């Protein structure tokens, strides 16, 4: 994900609002990866995620007039894309399982100092992934946004259309469930 200074991003948003599609395209390039990944982790289907990202960006372009000047662009965009992805998940009713990249080095090896740290080792990661996958949809979404996608609390709240307090409590609940599942 390309990060750019906020002031520069606000300038791009302003130019896009005036109808400069080129400026909007720069915003798309900067955010397409996180938008697509967010859509994928919600919809769990490549085609659905691709469509959700595309439709989300086009809708965002049309809705630029309603964007609050000075506020961060990414949470606003993710809210639109994630909504598209949720609509597709509801209609599709299927889900591709998440898998780990092959050949990932076992970074922590045997030097695991605690049972939780053991999760960082090869087999531990597979167990952790299985536990995440076994969570119910709303818990899994909050874990996916906060940790797998490394979104901020504000971005998670926007993407999942939830108050920040609910993101906090749901994250806490989901982490507890994961701990239980891994115990």
């Amino acid at each position, binding site marked *: 994900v390309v990060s750019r200074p906020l002031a520069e991003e606000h300038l791009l948003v302003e130019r896009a609002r005036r109808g400069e599609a080129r400026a909007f395209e720069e915003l798309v390039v900067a955010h397409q990866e996180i938008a697509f990944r967010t859509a994928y982790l919600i919809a769990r289907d490549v085609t659905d995620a*691709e469509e959700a990202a595309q439709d989300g960006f086009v809708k965002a372009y049309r809705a630029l007039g309603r964007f609050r000047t000075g506020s961060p662009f990414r949470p606003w965009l993710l809210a639109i894309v994630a909504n598209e992805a949720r609509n597709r998940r509801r209609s599709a009713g299927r889900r591709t399982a998440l898998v780990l990249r092959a050949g990932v080095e076992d970074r922590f090896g045997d030097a695991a100092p605690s049972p939780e740290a053991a999760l960082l080792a090869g087999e531990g990661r597979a167990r952790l992934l299985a536990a995440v996958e076994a969570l119910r949809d709303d818990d899994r979404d909050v874990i996916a946004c906060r940790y797998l996608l490394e979104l901020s609390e504000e971005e998670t709240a926007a993407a999942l259309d939830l108050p920040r307090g609910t993101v906090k409590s749901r994250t806490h609940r989901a982490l507890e469930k994961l701990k239980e599942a891994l115990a």
Partner: protein
Amino acid sequence: VTELERALVLLGRELELPATPDVAAAIRPRLARRRRRRWIAAVALAAAAVALAFAVPSSRGALLRFFHLRGATVELVGTLPALPARVDLGRPVDPDAAPFRLLLLDGRAPDAVYAADGGYWLRYPGALLFELRAAAGGTMLKKVAGADAPVRWVTVGDDPGVWIGTRHGLYLPGGAARSAGRTLLWQHGALTLRLEADVPLDDAIRLALSLR
């Protein structure tokens, strides 16, 4: 941050996720289409503003949709007012006196030519042709049809046109509004043409293509 949270972040980085597609390239045509639509809407609104200068009865109801060709606008409205048919086109004139060369149906001379309403009316048996040299952006001729009227864009040869397949209202600057029958409106070169004849669309287009 707990070990579990740290493990979840690392898990996210080690997931095999599909490659991010080039969303920017995929939506480029859609963004461009949107720009074109905005531009067309702006032009159409400008034409509508010009059309407001015409004396149109207020009873016609809400404007639902409109088509604009250079010099002519077709509006679809909720209620079509009752209008008289126009019978008098004024005094015939010498067609050679027209400031531009009049196009003739099938190259045949009309029964009569009238100069009125900013253009020329050519009367043929069963057909009435109006020729107008209009500047882009202005509206010299306005037609109003009911909400369900069969009005659509057509192509006359390579030229854009509008077919009004029903009785409708015709408004011209300075003239009284009148009721008109099936009409084909189209642009050809510098001219905006209007052919009124009680024939189906295919025949109207055939007649239009016979102009020379």
